[in-house]
């Protein structure tokens, strides 16, 4: 049953206040609700170098009430695999192992370890929080950054390439559960993490987590920005179980009622798109429309 209201979510907080993350951080909101969906007393988290490491704090204090190991940048899924094997050896398989990595740590640097773990069918959950850049080190371009975004490594001409279609790469491993989510739709996010928790085998979640300093929008607009990513169709909410794709939440509504927001609406409130040209807007719109059609077709096929 889908969670319908805020009051139905668990009341306990697993991140203590006073963390190091920026104000209005999309990752922070994502993690807050993801931990509510897990059973933090029976969860081990693996985190590579990223904003998530910063969130987890500096020794000897952490704001997070869950056991976490910090892994080398490229090794997240390999470290998680080791935890899974260790738990099996000591017969503590009631624990859930969850890797939480940024887009740099997933799309680029951690992809080999991730592919290895998925190919082995490792019994774990991998969550990529995608803020579309190497934010912790100062907004460098990643293969998840959108086309036409200015980053600190694409400062003059902006990024030339479209975002990598990571989910297709993940899907090629034929794992039992894949889902996308957004912190602006926390109930959908909560339900997906909960669903993933109870499935055996490899599960992959990708959350588009808006980042006010990296994208260049006012803090107060965090939720509106996340909603806009879904409403313009650049981020689509769905889950894929055993190869079958189903749109969820706001994306499901848009499939029935039609999309009204455009890429032009989306880019205008973000300074990272300050150099975008009319042609680049059209190209991004076309890229978005084409993907949307593919998702619709798969959804309708059932």
């Amino acid at each position, binding site marked *: 049953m889908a969670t319908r*209201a*805020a*009051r139905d*979510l668990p*009341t306990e*907080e697993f*991140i*203590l*206040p*006073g*963390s*190091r*993350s*920026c*104000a*209005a*951080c*999309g990752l*922070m*909101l994502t993690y*807050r609700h993801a931990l509510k969906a897990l059973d933090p007393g029976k969860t081990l988290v693996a985190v590579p170098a990223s904003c998530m490491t910063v969130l*987890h*704090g*500096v*020794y*000897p*204090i*952490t*704001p*997070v*009430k869950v056991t976490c190991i910090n892994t080398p940048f490229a090794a997240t899924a390999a470290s998680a695999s080791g935890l899974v094997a260790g738990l099996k050896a000591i017969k503590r398989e009631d624990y859930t192992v969850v890797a939480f990595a940024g887009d740099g740590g997933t799309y680029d640097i951690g992809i080999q370890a991730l592919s290895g773990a998925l190919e082995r069918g490792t019994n774990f959950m991998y969550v990529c929080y995608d803020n579309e850049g190497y934010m912790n080190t100062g907004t460098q371009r990643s293969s998840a950054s959108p086309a036409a975004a200015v980053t600190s490594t694409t400062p003059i001409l902006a990024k030339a390439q479209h975002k990598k279609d990571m989910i297709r790469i993940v899907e090629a491993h034929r794992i039992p559960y894949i889902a996308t989510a957004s*912190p602006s739709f*926390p109930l959908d996010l909560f339900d997906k993490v909960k669903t993933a928790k109870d499935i055996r085998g490899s599960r992959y979640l990708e959350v588009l987590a808006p980042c006010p300093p990296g994208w260049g929008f*006012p*803090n*107060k*607009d*965090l*939720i*509106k920005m996340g909603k806009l990513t879904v409403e313009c169709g650049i981020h689509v909410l769905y889950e894929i179980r055993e190869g079958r794709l189903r749109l969820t939440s706001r994306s499901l509504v848009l499939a029935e009622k039609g999309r009204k927001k455009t890429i032009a609406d989306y880019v205008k409130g973000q300074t990272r798109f300050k150099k975008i040209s009319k042609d680049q807007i059209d190209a991004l719109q076309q890229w978005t429309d084409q993907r949307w059609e593919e998702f619709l077709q798969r959804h309708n096929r059932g």
Partner: protein
Amino acid sequence: MADKIRETVMAISRPAPGEAGRTGDWRSYTPVIDHEKCTGKDSCLYCWLYCPDGVISREFPLEIDLEYCKGCGVCAEECPRKAITMVE
């Protein structure tokens, strides 16, 4: 032959609030709740749901932990009754 000394040294952090200090000091604007506009009866809890830092109470009358609230303004922006204002 001397026994091998096997010792594992691990750095383990312990959970505590205020890891980054009193993050309330980051604020330029402070959220203030008008309890006449939000009485608690059938209130939506959107502010609680969307506060990234989880510093708004779940019980009514709602309370904000100003020692740690970072002043992002998300709660005020998302409140459908305009019951929260950001004050300098």
